[in-house]
């Protein structure tokens, strides 16, 4: 393989597959990438389409079409598109300024702000939604202090379309932040300084130089926020269902509690619809990425001085972080310290009984922490490392193939977790040759996580790899470096910020993930999401809050450890440095 790579004819050409030899390394690696994407992304979707069209083995297209065209499904589809689109826009508006502030300015406290902006990903969407509902409700402590608390019985303004869009923006802003941060950290200083020395103002530089250069990252961030909105269940469940504003995930959840053999094909059919919506996001992506991309040699990142605006902007930043993170987190903490929900927190009522109950007396909690750490950490590591060679090979595919494959990889992330779990059960219940049955083992959860979160790792890394100049690679090839050596010494270090960003996104999403593991866990392999949700369902909200707070603490400790380790890494690799 090394020798065919060294000949000039085997050097990558823009567009299309390279052609030399009967079966070259190029072809093999292309096949490998296609196989991975087929197994991780196409297989579950294909099994779902099969379950939708041919339940029990007999094809029934008429019933399938009927399910898709029902008025409830169409209305839910429109609601999903609507809220996901505007939610992504809002997330972009919230996340990008933070990314710019942390990466390219001298805002005071920007490192801590960047660190804190990661944490809302750790708070489950249901918890965020509940905290905001509570904030605007009659029992809100904040509004009570300001004298603005609404009278009991008035409708909550958070319910319905507006509240859902607002919370999508809040919940997905960290995704935009992490992705944009990885891109902005590579904008070289000389471009910015050249513009400044010609007299351009900072905002003008941002508008005409920085944002066009990182346009692929903006599009990737918006796409991730969009598909996250399409597949989000927790927020529309709490804010939409009480007022009968249904999106596809909540409609699917409702259909889940029906009886009879028609349930599985019904939810499979609706999930196919969700997948189709995710693919429309792909169309928007293509439109937004028209025109040549930019390839830049990495240098030291640019820096702006904010001058008089330092303090006002810092205050604005802390205000936003306060609303997005600190308020829900404080609400969680307050809930975890009272013996029962509704008891006001005071010096005489405060208790740590919830913590001792869940951490010490219930063996399932410690087990769940261990399992979630293993599953989320394992998936994050596997994906962060595995997508780098995948992205390198994908980059040489035709533009249209790349977009199509990117859209396919999105699919398992957008469909509701419970449906992906059902697809995994259908696929892996029966024993596979050589491996045996994966069902009721830890492996099935790892595989499901790999399927679900592949896109979170692939998008930032594919964007990064797409920006690495080809001449670096070609120079190394001409000098005799084989493909693996080039991967290790040139591509991987340049793609490292994006890979770490992707790995963090995967870890944060998988750590307190609920819906996929709910159907796939087996005795002794419960995850944190499963335990937390069980406590919520049982009306033990204070114990659930104790677990949620412990989870946040564990993640902060892990991130601090990563920070210590990251001192030796170049700037920009860790999102908050």
């Amino acid at each position, binding site marked *: 393989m090394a020798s065919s790579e060294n000949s000039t004819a085997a050097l990558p050409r823009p567009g299309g597959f390279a052609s030399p030899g009967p079966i070259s390394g190029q072809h093999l690696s292309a096949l490998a990438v296609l196989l991975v994407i087929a197994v991780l992304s196409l297989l579950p979707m294909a099994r779902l389409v099969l379950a939708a069209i041919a339940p029990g083995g007999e094809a029934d297209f008429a019933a399938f079409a009927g399910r898709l065209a029902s008025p409830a499904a169409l209305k839910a589809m429109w609601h999903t598109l609507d809220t996901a689109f505007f939610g992504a826009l809002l997330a972009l508006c919230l996340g990008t300024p933070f990314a710019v502030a942390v990466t390219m300015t001298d805002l005071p406290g920007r490192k801590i702000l960047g660190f804190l902006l990661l944490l809302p990903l750790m708070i489950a969407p249901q918890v965020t939604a509940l905290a905001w509902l509570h904030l605007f409700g009659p029992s809100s402590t904040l509004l009570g202090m300001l004298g603005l608390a609404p009278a009991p019985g008035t409708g909550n303004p958070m319910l319905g379309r507006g509240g859902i869009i607002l919370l999508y923006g809040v919940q997905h802003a960290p995704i935009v932040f992490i992705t944009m941060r990885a891109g902005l950290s590579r904008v070289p200083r000389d471009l910015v300084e050249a513009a400044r020395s010609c007299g351009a103002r900072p905002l003008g530089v941002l508008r005409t130089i920085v944002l066009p250069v990182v346009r692929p990252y903006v599009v990737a961030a918006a796409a991730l926020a969009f598909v996250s909105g399409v597949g989000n269940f927790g927020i529309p469940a709490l804010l939409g269902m009480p007022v009968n504003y249904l999106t596809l995930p909540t409609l699917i959840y409702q259909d889940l509690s029906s009886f009879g053999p028609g349930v599985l094909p019904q939810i499979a059919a609706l999930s196919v619809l969700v997948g189709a919506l995710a693919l429309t996001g792909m169309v928007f992506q293509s439109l937004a990425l028209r025109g040549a991309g930019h390839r830049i040699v990495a240098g030291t990142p640019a820096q702006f001085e904010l001058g008089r605006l330092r303090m006002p902007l810092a205050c604005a930043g802390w205000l936003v972080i306060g609303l997005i993170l600190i308020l829900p987190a404080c609400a969680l903490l307050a809930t975890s310290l009272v013996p029962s929900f509704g008891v006001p927190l005071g010096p005489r009522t405060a208790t740590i009984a919830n913590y001792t109950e869940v951490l010490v007396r219930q063996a399932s909690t410690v087990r769940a922490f261990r399992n979630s750490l293993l599953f989320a950490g394992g998936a994050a590591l596997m994906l962060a490392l595995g997508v780098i060679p995948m992205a390198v090979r994908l980059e040489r595919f035709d533009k249209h193939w790349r977009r199509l494959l990117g859209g396919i990889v999105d699919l398992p992330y957008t469909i509701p977790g419970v449906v992906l779990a059902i697809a995994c059960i259908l696929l892996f219940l*029966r024993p596979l040759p050589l491996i045996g049955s994966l069902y009721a083992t830890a492996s099935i959860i790892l595989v499901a996580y790999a399927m679900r979160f592949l896109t979170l790792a692939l998008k930032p890394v594919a964007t990064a790899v797409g920006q690495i100049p080809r001449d670096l690679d070609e120079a190394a090839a001409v000098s005799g470096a084989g493909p693996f050596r080039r991967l290790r010494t040139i591509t991987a270090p340049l793609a490292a910020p994006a890979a770490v960003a992707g790995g963090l996104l995967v870890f944060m999403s998988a750590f307190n993930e609920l819906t996929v593991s709910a159907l796939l866990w087996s005795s002794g392999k419960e995850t944190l999401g499963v335990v937390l949700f069980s406590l919520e369902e049982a*009306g033990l909200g204070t114990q659930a809050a104790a677990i949620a707070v412990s989870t946040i603490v564990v993640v902060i400790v892990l991130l601090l450890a990563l920070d210590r380790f990251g001192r030796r890494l170049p700037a920009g690799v860790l999102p908050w440095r």
Partner: protein
Amino acid sequence: MRQIVLAALLLASTVAGASAAQGTLVLYTSQPNTDAQQTVDAFMAKNPGIKVDWVRDGTPKILAKLHAEIEAGQPQADVLLIADVVTMEGLKKEGRLLAYPEAKVEGIDAALYDKDKTYFSTKLITTGIVYNTKAPFTPTSWEDLKKPEAKGLIAMPSPLTSGAAMIHTVTLTGNLPEGWSYYGALAKNGAQASGGNGDVLKAVSGGDKLFGMIVDYMPIREKAKGAPVEFVFPKEGVSAVTEPVAILSTAKNQEAAKAFVDFLLSKDGQEVAAKMGYIPARADVALPAGYPDRSSIKVLDYDAAAALANDAQNKEKFSAVMSQ
């Protein structure tokens, strides 16, 4: 691999002619995590040869898991312990349940188990009214929720996502004189149906709403911890879900499954349920603290088979009535 070991164990147990049930029992349940663990631990203490592998999730999700396994051709569960009888009727109609005519049902009301002995109720979980101690009045009847003082202050679980809530809806509309207009009146009074019992408890004890329809054990348990809530058994009567247990027709370890059913219906098993805070099905086991006398609780009747057959229509009717 596990199946080979299991098969070997079963073979060994039959060859040895052992009469005690042995091996692994796979339980799918919708009880909360802690309750499931307590039940399983108590059962394993009484039956040392059996190891229980259990999984819990809300009834719709655990049924989705079971149906996916059936679709894939290898259902894994031996025994099911889920919230309501209507779901069991559905499984019975699909032919998925194994009849157990020798089950020891002495001491249990015949209305609480299937006449063909395919499923057996283990508890009585009634739905009544919870109110916050700051509420403007103390409700004593379902009709009190229609009062103008309760406008916008009522929380209830949604029958669209909860089978137990659907049973409650079917029971009230079947027993109250005004039928479905009762829910129409509630909708006009600003009631919103959302989520499950845990959400109703949060809303009422947190003060966002002041009245709610909820299962009995939750507010009774939380009141003992200091929550500002009270529970009322309304004077017309209450609906009940009964947490039935059933053996699947595809069960791999039928002996252990039968032992599990026997345990749940025995005095020991029923006392475990009482200790966890539920009303036990057996009449000779005392109710837990905080409950009134068993004789004063009036449980309203409903037709489970009709509830199953009309489920889709009932859901549509509920959506239509509540969105006025």
